[in-house]
């Protein structure tokens, strides 16, 4: 399997576009998830991916170890997404945004407090999810990305580790910490409402 990747990398390095196409096909879904979790917007993630793959193609002759092609490609995707995320953050600083309007947090509080979700909750699920996502967005990038890749995208630890260029142990500890932080944020956001009720 690894030989297959290495062969593709060598052929692509020599300018074989069909080999590069296969590499794009094989990596784009995970690369897209990483970019999406870093940037938060599907359109921006797709643009970042296009830019990243173009950079990968242009740098194809600089890949020293063809066996490491996947990690190398994901590193370039992360680099591009990270630059775009920083630019977006600068823009956002100029337009401050509020996290979780009062009504949304009240709805989330009653949803989480219910024994089982009612029909109303199912209809409002997308909105409730957006409220939770608003809290997740306030986590730092390194915790947010690991949490979303695991919980939303259902990726395994190995896959997350490879796509983020991290040891598996670091992925586990970041995920644990991300859950702790999200739990505290939920508690803080909902506690006041429950106390008041």
């Amino acid at each position, binding site marked *: 399997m690894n030989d297959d990747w290495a062969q593709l990398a060598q052929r692509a390095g020599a300018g074989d576009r069909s080999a590069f196409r296969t590499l794009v096909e094989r990596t784009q879904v995970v690369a897209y998830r990483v970019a999406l979790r870093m940037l938060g917007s599907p359109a921006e993630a797709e643009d970042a991916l296009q830019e990243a793959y173009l950079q990968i*193609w*242009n740098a194809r002759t600089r890949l020293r170890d063809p066996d490491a092609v996947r990690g190398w490609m994901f590193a370039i995707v992360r680099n591009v997404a990270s630059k775009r995320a920083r630019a977006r953050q600068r823009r956002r600083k100029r337009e401050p945004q509020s996290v979780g309007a009062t009504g949304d947090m009240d709805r989330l509080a009653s949803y989480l407090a219910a024994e089982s979700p009612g029909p109303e909750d199912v209809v409002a699920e997308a909105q409730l999810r957006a409220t939770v996502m608003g*809290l997740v967005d306030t986590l730092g990038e390194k915790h947010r990305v690991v949490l979303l890749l695991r919980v939303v995208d259902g990726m395994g630890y190995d896959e997350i580790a490879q796509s983020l260029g991290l040891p598996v142990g670091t992925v586990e500890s970041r995920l644990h910490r991300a859950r702790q932080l999200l739990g505290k944020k*939920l508690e803080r956001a909902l506690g006041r409402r429950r106390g008041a009720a």
Partner: protein
Amino acid sequence: MTAGRDLERAEGLLASEGPAAPSVDLTDRIMGTIAAGAEAPADGSRGWVELWIRVAWPVAAAGAAAAVALAVAAPTRTPPPDPVGAIMASPDFHPRHLLPLGPKGTPDAP
């Protein structure tokens, strides 16, 4: 209601979104961009050539054009006034004209 259960249900909400995937297969878009020649130098060697063609050459050309324009314009400029030169160039000039005047307005004897 425990905080652990809140977190679990909140995660359940997130998970209900399902794994993300690009809205379309991006392969054709990416390969199309590459085929259109939107590529930077693969080995870096062409980078300086491109920089020269795109940036340095026009700047150098503009500088050279400005230098030529200055050189052409230079001889037509009016020289600064030179009163002593004008006196010396006069047909009536005598070296005594340059000597300091005496008390009655006549040149002193050497």
